């Protein structure tokens, strides 16, 4: 199937050359990379803001910035990280690049719309950044925009709200594109249950994007109306209801956390079979559990509002469902581990990151359960325990899955190899730094250290200092990792088409892939993840 007659997508010259060639390209691979570069850029900004917060918190009282600046910093840190980085995140980068290839298509269903989504994304991201500089000063509401404060704050909240709205629009269009792509463009013979699991996870994600995002859209518009027109839906002085906002916000934002994690789960699901040379364990269970997470995830939003005074039985109900939604995640974890069992395991950097993903995700997940239990939520709600929970699950989960994915697909994307040695070193520093940074926040959170605190009581200092030290170590790890990837992107050894002996379709075409992906659309006969048909038939007898 390997063909060399076509130019690869990196070298291809269409109507425009150089940068313009990228900015006008409707090729899903280029768009995927364009998302990646944009996301990396914003990640570095937002991460440095995180570092600034850690420096500020190295001692009680003011150290490097005043309270107003601190409030602005965690707000924009949260907004960039959530709306600009992790929500589009893996789906936009790896989804765009690999979804069509993995289902044997030449592109997504609507290539032009795909490019448009990127531009809308960039417009939203730029608005988010601009909100820092124009008007009444950097927004200071937190990424959750809770009213009444967000309707009253004198800062430039409007722009941030609009930015989130625009980004939501881009997210909807990407989701829509993926759903149609998966419905219409699967290669002949690829039935739903022959589709690899990364596309499955994207499918579940896309439905959440399409069905949940409009709710946040209208909610943000209502806050905008509140600020500009004094409409008062959420203003108790005019009869409005501040809790209504929280309900609407979380109806979207809870499913949104699964928008972040599902593609990440999809990525690691690709990695375990390849490096164990063994079919994925429990294919059906993993696919169905993605859908289950997406479905049940709609009905647990109230767990962010346990202490707002909602009724006794709503607390009961939301807590119960929160626990139910944990079970599909558990199923996935068990299946991943079993995929490795009995394999021929090659502990290359992608697998190392994928395993760390499981470890950190377990910690994040179990602390999520702690938050979901009514009694313990009372103690931990809005403390650094929550902060640690979601950094473990977002950065430790989604972030590490991204690192795993980029190390896995790097040779495919660039046609070159990075240095394994540097990758291991970076991983070591990163892993230690990460745990030092976030683990202490669990401890002081339980003791009563609230989140979004510029200042704190002296008894929490030890925890904060360890955490800040961890932040610096983490940064060092990231620098090594980025250096490794950026430098060897052009300078690395030439990679072969299938360096890891993977069996999904992306490994059957040259590295980097040709413009049209496939010279001839493949016809699918085997089950997915078939490494050794003979052996399998012999051992299972079917």
């Amino acid at each position, binding site marked *: 199937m390997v063909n060399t*007659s*076509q*130019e690869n997508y990196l070298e*291809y010259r*269409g*109507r425009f050359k150089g940068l313009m060639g990228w900015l006008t390209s*409707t*090729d899903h691979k280029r768009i995927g990379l364009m998302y990646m570069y944009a996301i990396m850029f914003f990640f570095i900004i937002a991460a440095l803001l995180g570092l600034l917060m850690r420096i500020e918190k190295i001692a009680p009282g003011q150290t490097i910035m005043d309270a107003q600046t601190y409030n602005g910093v965690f707000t924009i840190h949260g907004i960039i990280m959530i709306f600009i980085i992790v929500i589009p995140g893996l789906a936009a980068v790896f989804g765009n690049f690999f979804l069509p290839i993995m289902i044997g298509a*030449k*592109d997504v*269903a*609507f*290539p*032009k*719309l795909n490019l448009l989504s990127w531009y809308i994304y960039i417009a939203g991201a730029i608005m988010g950044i601009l909100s820092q500089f124009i008007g009444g000063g950097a927004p200071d509401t937190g990424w959750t925009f809770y009213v009444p404060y967000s309707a009253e704050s004198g800062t430039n909240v409007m722009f941030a709200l609009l930015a989130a709205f625009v980004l939501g629009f881009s997210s*909807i269009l990407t989701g*829509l*594109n993926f*759903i*149609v792509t998966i*419905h*219409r463009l699967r290669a002949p013979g690829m039935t739903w249950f022959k589709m690899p699991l990364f596309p499955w996870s994207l499918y579940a994600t896309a439905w959440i994007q*399409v*069905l949940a*995002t*409009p*709710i946040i*859209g*209208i*909610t943000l*518009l*209502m806050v905008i*109306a509140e600020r500009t*027109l*004094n*409409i*008062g*839906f959420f203003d108790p002085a*005019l*009869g*409005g*209801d501040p809790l*209504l906002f929280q309900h*609407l916000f979380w109806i979207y934002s809870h499913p949104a956390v699964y928008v972040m994690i599902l593609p990440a789960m999809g990525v690691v699901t690709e990695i375990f079979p390849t490096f164990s040379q063994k079919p994925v364990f429990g294919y059906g269970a993993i696919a169905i559990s993605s859908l289950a997470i997406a479905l049940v995830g709609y009905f647990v939003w109230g767990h962010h509002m346990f202490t707002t005074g909602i009724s006794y039985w709503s607390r009961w109900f939301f807590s119960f469902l929160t626990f139910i939604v944990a079970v599909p995640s558990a199923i996935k974890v068990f299946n991943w581990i079993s995929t490795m069992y009995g394999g021929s395991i090659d502990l290359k950097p992608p697998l190392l990151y994928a395993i760390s993903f499981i470890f950190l995700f377990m910690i994040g997940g179990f602390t999520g359960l702690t938050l979901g239990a009514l009694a313990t939520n009372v103690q931990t709600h809005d403390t650094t325990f929550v902060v640690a929970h979601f950094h473990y699950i977002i950065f430790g989960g989604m972030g590490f899955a991204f690192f795993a994915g980029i190390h896995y697909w790097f040779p495919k994307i660039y046609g070159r190899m990075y240095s394994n040695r540097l990758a291991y070193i970076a991983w070591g520093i990163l892993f230690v730094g990460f745990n030092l940074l976030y683990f202490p926040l669990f401890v002081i959170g339980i003791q009563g250290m609230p989140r979004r605190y510029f200042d704190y009581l002296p008894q929490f200092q030890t925890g904060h200092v360890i955490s800040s030290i961890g932040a610096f170590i983490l940064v060092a790890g990231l620098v090594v990792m980025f250096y490794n990837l950026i430098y060897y992107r052009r300078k690395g050894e030439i990679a072969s088409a299938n360096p890891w002996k993977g069996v999904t379709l992306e490994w059957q075409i040259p590295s980097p892939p040709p*413009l*049209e992906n496939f*010279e001839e659309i493949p016809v699918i006969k085997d089950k997915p993840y078939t490494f050794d048909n003979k052996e399998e038939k012999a051992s299972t007898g079917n």
Partner: protein
Amino acid sequence: MNTSTAHTDHYDPESSKIGMWLFLFTEMFLFGGLFLVYAVFRNKYSADFHHGAHELNAFIGTFNTVVLLISSMTVAMSITAIQKKNRKLAVNMIIITIVLALVFMLNKYFEWSYKFEYKLYPGSPVMMNLPQGEILFYGLYFMMTGLHALHVLIGIVLLVVNIFKIRSGKVHHERFSLLENSGLYWHLVDLIWIFLFPLLYLVT
């Protein structure tokens, strides 16, 4: 087999239709959020909502409903026309649709400016002094009809684009996804109005 040229723009009406339906879903959810807010406040302030609905001019509302319903029909007729290769009829039907849309907007304009004359607009002192439930009712009224009007405007733009594309032959009897999808969009605009109308004007 085309090699090393740009991606061919492959045409799949089925895909476009699924895509459009998905998009319409998102639009319904967008308004759905507002309906939810409506339900909550209606529950809390039923007397005020009752009074607010009374103040709105049900005649203009009904008239506009009829206008939109007819326009939904004409847009459907234009799609049938293009399938039957009758380009002229198709264009004419679109033009009628646009005229009806403009009539709708004109009515909306009168309705709103009538309220503005009484200094009744969001944030105005008159409005701020109403009972709380009525503030919210009018807030919802302006927000919902405003957002709907925006959709009407977008619909008009889409239809105008279709006229040009039909004239230039880009949309024809074998390739009419654009018109079909614009028609779907127009039906959505109509549908949402069908929900808005009773909620704001009739239900008391």
